[in-house]
């Protein structure tokens, strides 16, 4: 069994065969690891001395597949990485190829992209909230969250026929025009969420058990976040108001009025608050985008056969879990020479050890939940 990467901090040097130390295996078949994550815990009683993640159980070689498919053929594959935020994955990939092609995306397509991506962000956060609360022992939120998430999935289904792995976007714009009641349904969902987020707050925010299980647990401060490359709600909960939608706007995000929620202490509770606020902000963006939805074409002038010139580009977007980047290298042929995905879940998960040291075994469950990982994206 592989040892932990670093020596645990608190082990006294002069103890002869420390009898309190125990190595405990958690997962890969464990409901709170959100898939097939295996964590090897080194414990002293109930206290975690160190962790080691064993990942790769879901490795499908997505980057290798990318090199063996044409640019268009690879687009559906990216949906299968972070499958609860498939729309964001697709957006990042399409934008990277558009950058290589130097292709313009029409305004209407940009706007629909924003609406669908923000809907997907809400859906991803809802799934996170439900399962995270379930891990900690609150049964009710998961039912409520899935109920609301269903509304998003219905919009996706009406839009493109798929609920989860949507393949909603195409290189250069969109494949499908929106349907008749699209705007109405999006606005109705925003209205619904306003009310429902309040309901989740009523259930959890003041709940003593919830507060005790999350406050001060799994702290990751801003400096740690930066050195570990941790982004997304984890970084914002540590007080850094950094969001790629604001820092390096894409898809016309500079035209929308929204805030980047932050918190102070970088613990599990703060990350919960940040994500709750992000759901509201996403709804705010959706409303503005629906109001401003221009008419016009939905696909730019992109050749049927996509053959970017030789070159390379790195394009990243703010996915629900953090910075999702695509580094695409073209050799001028029909297939990408190299597609590198910079997955937020993978990089964020690397900070698990830092967050777990010194906490209790039960907190490990809360900490894995709060990072918000999807193993499909970690393992690719």
């Amino acid at each position, binding site marked *: 069994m592989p040892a932990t990467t670093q020596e645990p901090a608190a082990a006294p040097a002069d103890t002869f065969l420390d009898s309190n130390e125990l190595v405990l295996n958690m997962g890969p078949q464990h409901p709170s690891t959100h898939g097939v994550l295996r964590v090897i815990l080194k414990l002293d009683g109930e206290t975690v001395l160190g962790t080691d993640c064993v990942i790769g159980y879901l490795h499908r070689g997505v980057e*290798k597949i990318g090199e063996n498919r044409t640019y268009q053929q690879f687009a559906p594959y990216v949906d299968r990485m972070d499958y609860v935020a498939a729309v964001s994955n697709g957006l990042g990939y399409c934008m990277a190829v558009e950058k290589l092609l130097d292709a313009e995306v029409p305004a209407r397509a940009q706007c629909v992209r924003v609406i669908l991506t923000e809907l997907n962000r809400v859906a991803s956060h809802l799934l996170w909230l439900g399962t995270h609360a379930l891990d900690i022992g609150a049964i009710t939120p998961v039912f409520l969250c899935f109920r609301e998430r269903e509304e998003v999935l219905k919009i996706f289904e009406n839009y493109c026929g798929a609920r989860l792995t949507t393949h909603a976007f195409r290189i250069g714009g969109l494949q499908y025009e929106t349907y008749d009641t699209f705007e109405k349904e999006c606005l109705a969902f925003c209205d619904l969420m306003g009310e429902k987020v309040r309901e989740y707050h009523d259930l959890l925010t003041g709940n003593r058990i919830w507060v005790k299980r999350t406050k001060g647990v799994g702290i990751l401060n801003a400096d740690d976040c930066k050195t570990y490359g941790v982004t997304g709600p984890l970084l914002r909960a540590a007080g850094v108001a950094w969001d790629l939608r604001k820092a390096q706007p894409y898809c016309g995000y500079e035209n929308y009025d929204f805030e980047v929620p932050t918190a102070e202490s970088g613990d599990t509770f703060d990350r919960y608050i940040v994500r709750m606020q992000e759901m509201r902000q996403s709804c705010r963006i959706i409303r503005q985008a629906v109001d401003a939805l221009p008419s016009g074409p939905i696909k730019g002038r992109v050749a049927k056969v996509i053959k970017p010139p030789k070159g390379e580009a790195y394009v990243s977007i703010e996915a629900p879990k953090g910075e999702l980047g695509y580094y695409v290298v073209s050799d001028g042929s029909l297939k990408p020479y190299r597609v590198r995905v910079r997955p937020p879940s993978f990089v964020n998960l690397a900070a698990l050890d830092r967050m777990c040291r010194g906490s209790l075994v039960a907190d490990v469950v809360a900490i894995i939940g709060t990072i918000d990982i999807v193993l499909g994206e970690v393992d690719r």
Partner: protein
Amino acid sequence: MPSEPWEGPLPSSLKERFGDGLESAVRLGGQQLLTVALPAAREVLASLRDDHGFDYLVDVTAVHWPKRERPFDIVWILYSFEANERVRVKATAADGESAPSVTSLYKAADWLEREVFDMFGLRFEGHPDLRRILLPDEWDGHPLLKGYGILQQDSAWVRENLKIESAQ
């Protein structure tokens, strides 16, 4: 892709300090790209972090060009929160040559370098625990090498551990 020389205080201060260690500084499609000699890579990254505020290592990856004399590109992507800027640093490596590890500069490099090792077989000098991360430890071969087929697998490992003939 349109490429133009990148001039400014950052490339010129690096040029002054590293001389031939910095091979080129260009804007490729508007993105800042530095090409460095592999032995200088760690020092360049240290200077970018300490003197120029690039405090976030976004990604480490590699590209395999089997026909080239030095067949590997190693790519580091950095970001500065203060300047809101990205820079890509690139170096080439020969077969069997190790790259300097930047784990002591950025903790994010730990898993990212392990993934490059796993996928390309490139070693990182100074990495505290360089072992495979996505594939099993005993796996034979590095899948993102261009010579590794799309259907290729370590059949012996699959037979022994999964008790099936093929994982395809």
